[in-house]
């Protein structure tokens, strides 16, 4: 790749894990954002991430596919599960999607634990570190830009309209089921990619990385940052990724911390910390 000055190289090396986490959590925050942006609540982001992680790790370890094929292929399983969960629940009220996606996460965790192919409680190890920093940040930047462009268009207006008032949106001609499904699919793709990248920077993945706790953490990224723009949840993720580093000694309290953040954000900052609103037109 490009030549990097030695001081930057040192810095990147020292904080490599943190830098990777920041980028990957940014993608996860966006995967939460696209669902919340149409007024739905899914708690399946961690499950979709797990599907991307396990799927990509197996393609690399067992089939030895090159990473540039593994990465897009890692989206297939999350997309299929998004359809399977979304088709029956998205016609109903929002709470069914939330419940079904929690269920999906727990079912998948049981599958990883009990089927040999997925390595059981030990997970999968020895995954080669093929995800480079530039890939993570390139994909994150691309996702932010694409979602920004979509936000400032007819599609973005329809999404905000659904979030504010589904009845009024429908009467304007917005096909709300289609938008909900589209959002859930986009969410699954982003989380799947994040999972594949995560698996290929950490060399090891295990079933507990994709359970209920990470699902709540991903939700707190978007609740803290807000969903006024695609950048807001990414910044929320950055804050929640960096803060535990700063408070290293308290890492056991991470879940408590996230819980408190959710409660405070909902009570006092319903639009998030980064609550700027974007213009909804391109002309």
């Amino acid at each position: 790749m490009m030549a990097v000055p030695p001081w930057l190289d040192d810095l990147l090396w020292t904080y490599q894990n943190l830098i990777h986490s920041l980028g990957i959590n940014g993608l996860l925050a966006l995967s939460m954002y696209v669902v919340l942006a149409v007024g739905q609540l899914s708690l399946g982001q961690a499950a979709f991430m797990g599907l991307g992680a396990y799927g990509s790790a197996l393609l690399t370890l067992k089939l030895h596919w090159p990473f540039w094929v593994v990465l897009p292929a890692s989206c297939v399983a999350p997309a299929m599960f998004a359809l399977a969960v979304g088709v029956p629940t998205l016609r109903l009220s929002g709470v069914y999607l939330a419940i079904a996606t929690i269920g999906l996460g727990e079912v998948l965790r049981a599958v990883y634990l009990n089927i040999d192919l997925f390595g059981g409680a030990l997970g999968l190890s020895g995954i080669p570190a093929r995800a480079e920093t530039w890939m993570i940040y390139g994909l994150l930047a691309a996702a932010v830009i694409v979602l920004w462009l979509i936000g400032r268009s007819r599609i973005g207006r329809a999404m905000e309209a659904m979030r504010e008032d589904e009845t009024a949106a429908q009467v304007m001609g917005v096909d709300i089921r289609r938008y909900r499904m589209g959002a859930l699919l986009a969410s699954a793709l982003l989380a799947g990619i994040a999972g594949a990248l995560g698996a290929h920077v950490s060399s090891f993945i295990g079933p507990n990385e994709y359970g209920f706790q990470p699902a709540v953490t991903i939700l707190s990224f978007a609740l803290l940052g807000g969903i006024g723009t695609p950048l807001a949840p990414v910044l929320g993720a950055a804050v929640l990724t960096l803060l535990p580093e700063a408070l290293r000694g308290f890492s056991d309290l991470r879940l408590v911390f996230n819980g408190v953040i959710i409660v405070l954000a909902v009570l006092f900052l319903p639009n998030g910390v980064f609550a700027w609103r974007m213009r909804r037109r391109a002309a």
Partner: protein
Amino acid sequence: MTWLLETTGLTRRFAGLVAVDGVDLRVAQGGIHAVIGPNGAGKTTLFNLISGLIVPSAGTIRFAGTDVTRLPPDRRAALGMGRTFQNIRVFGAMTVLENVLTGLHARTAPDLLGTGLLGTGLLGTVLRLPRFRAAEREAVARARAALDLVGLGAQAETRAAALSYGDQRRLEIARAMAPEPRLLLLDEPAAGMNPAETAALGALVRRLGGLGTTILLVEHDMGFVMGISDAVTVLNFGRRILDGPPEAVRQSPVVIEAYLGQKVAARLAKSAP
């Protein structure tokens, strides 16, 4: 004669209550058609059935030559049906202009010849293709024209929630009118307005009627309706009790008794502790 809108035996029951009871409503192309009736007569329920927000218990709805009884609201909008709500439903966080642009959603749909992706579809949007930008410019021009029509042109960039009550009502009308629907349903547009605002609204509705959009208007205020309507349908307890030109309806003893009787009774009930 073919009707723009025709309901046959339209019925909607809510637990133990028939809110709309076998209504046959025929709305001719062009002009202003009013549905009047006292509070609770089933007018809003009738509108919800016509626009597809609730499904009928029985009966059919034909609109512009299509049986729309089973179509969801967004498909009816695409066929050229627009509406406003009795309780204001503007998108408060959006600007006034963005509200009206959203109203153009069906109108600016990706076209059918496989170019959905390229125009206002996903690909055209993300790549900002010329067709996308042209559609967006056209939508803004249309939205501004609709705002000028209702006299909100100067407030285009105001947050909708910051508008006065009367202006929010006008915004809803602009949002519904922007796509130039074939049929516009107005649910009690004069509700909560003072006499001056009501008079201005009457003039506006008449102007809209002259633009080629057929207007179906719900009101419980007879005075507002009589001056501007070409045809009037009277509902009471969910049933259609009379149909005809405004003069005939105004003079009908059945209507005066049923309608005003109700109103007087309601007023008496309200003034009693």
